[in-house]
């Protein structure tokens, strides 16, 4: 019996390591490729590099719009996060902790955003944003990202909000504290980890967004990282793999840093607080 158990846990560990390998090894592989000369990547099929170079990074950092794209991506992502958080917190509080007729229908209506065939309705979106003077603006792009971050963000906060006891509001009501003040002074501090999580969610939604940025940001100097990267990598007839690898690493590093700093808060913020 004891033996069986340890075989099972060894097997489990093996499967976990395999999953982790499939999910993360490509990043290490591309990191290695980014330090190899392109010609060697194309000709040499060995796993161990013959020579290492930083030329791919030199061309990424000094001959492409990398820094501009990073700044643009950050601007759009920060707008998205700043607009999303109040909308998500207010929306989630409304759906999960107030009572009014139709709140279930409204929350389903919000989730209906994801029915929207994004690739297919960029034309009408372009028209409407053109009328609103939001074309070629980072704010317009951020509004689009916000619309797609908010509905799921509201749902992500549910576990946290539902885990708070209703006595919080009851006690506040007995003390004569209004519902709005209860939300701001009592509930929001309680859901702080949840807010970090939805901020990360909104950030990633914006950081990875491709289609709306491509449609709405016309000027080259407004382009975000995914647009710029796609242009320099897949815009050419032959892909320069060394350079592409450096571009991929350069785009993954900001996300890597984000998760290094606040990554462990993500899962904590979307669960009801059982994770230490």
């Amino acid at each position, binding site marked *: 019996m004891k033996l069986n158990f340890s075989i099972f846990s060894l097997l489990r560990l093996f499967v976990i390591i395999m999953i982790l390998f499939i999910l993360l090894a490509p990043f290490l592989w591309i990191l290695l490729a980014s330090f190899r000369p392109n010609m060697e990547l194309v000709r040499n099929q060995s796993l161990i590099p013959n020579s290492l170079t930083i030329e791919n990074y030199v061309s990424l950092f000094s001959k492409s719009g990398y820094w501009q794209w990073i700044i643009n991506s950050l601007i759009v992502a920060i707008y998205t996060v700043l607009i999303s958080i109040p909308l998500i917190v207010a929306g989630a509080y409304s759906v999960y902790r107030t009572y009014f007729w139709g709140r279930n229908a409204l929350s389903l209506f919000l989730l209906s955003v994801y029915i929207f065939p994004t690739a*297919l309705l960029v*034309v009408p979106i372009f028209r409407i944003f053109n009328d609103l003077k939001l074309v070629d603006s980072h704010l317009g792009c951020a509004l689009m990202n916000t619309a797609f971050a908010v509905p799921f963000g509201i749902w992500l906060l549910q576990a946290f909000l539902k885990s708070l006891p209703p006595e919080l509001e009851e006690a506040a009501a007995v003390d004569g504290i209004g519902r709005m003040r209860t939300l701001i002074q009592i509930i929001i501090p309680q859901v702080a980890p949840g807010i970090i999580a939805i901020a990360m969610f909104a950030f990633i939604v914006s950081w990875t967004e491709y289609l709306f940025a491509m449609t709405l940001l016309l000027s080259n100097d407004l382009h975000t990282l995914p647009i710029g990267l796609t242009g320099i990598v897949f815009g050419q007839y032959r892909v320069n793999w060394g350079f592409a690898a450096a571009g991929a690493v350069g785009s993954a590093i900001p996300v890597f840093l984000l998760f290094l700093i606040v990554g462990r808060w993500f899962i904590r913020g979307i669960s009801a607080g059982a994770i230490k």
Partner: protein
Amino acid sequence: MTKQDFRSRDARLGFLLVLPAVVLVILVVILPIISGIQISFTSQRVVGSEYEFIGLKNYFELFEDKQFIASLGKSAIWVLANGFFQTLAALLIALLINQPFRGQNFVRTWIILPWAVPAAVTAILWRWMFDASSGIVNTTMKGMDLVQKPVLFLANPDIAGMSLTFVNSWRYIPFLTIIFLASLASVPEEEYEAAKVDGATPWLQFKSITFPNLLPTLTVLGLVGTLWASNVFDIIWMMTRGGPGDATTTVPVLMYDMAFYGYNISKATAGAIIFLFILIIFAFVFIFANRKQFVIASDTFQDLSK
């Protein structure tokens, strides 16, 4: 303050709080759909060009368009393979790493990385890994004598769809896994302890505690995940552009190509509306079939405002 008074004030506040999100969704979803329906009834070919009203002609043309019908089929397979498979795989992985082990926190933090990088990075990673002559997957398989000739993961029409499904799953499964993990962590510990006292087997615990507690999450991810999968565009566009031939041309890819490379915006938009209509029917059936799981909020706060 009377009870009635309190209740109506509470309702008003609740409605006002959710209003901004609703307005934003109407602005970027409902209005474009109305505008899209208008465009689909015209003959407009490029943005800003002259056009006239042609009624349902675009729709009739699409129903006779073999390429469009084929893309509907490919989208159906894509959604089944991605939406369904990903949810199931994520659930299994979450159950696997939910039990404590050394390094659990590391796994819980970093497993999500594939979801957090732009699709362009994913496309570079996997086009490079799948490369016929110098990609790691092919060189490894050759080195182990598993294959004689390199596998053309993205250039062989029989395999390209599977390769893309793999890459897209690689991208989304981590995120779904994290959500399941969070949901598992929210199951009250007392329920398991009580079950252990009663001598319940692990399978019985799963069936009577874990699964019922996961069901609302599973249902929402089933709906949202299917919708996400059906609208996947960027990763297909960057890796195969719908090719080789039409092998990976799902509806979003075909419509995008038709609108911006085939210069037929109105017909492409009509195709989008048909696709949207199918998704709406799916969503209604799904929500109706699982309506008990979609009662989003508990009724605790109904009592509070009485």
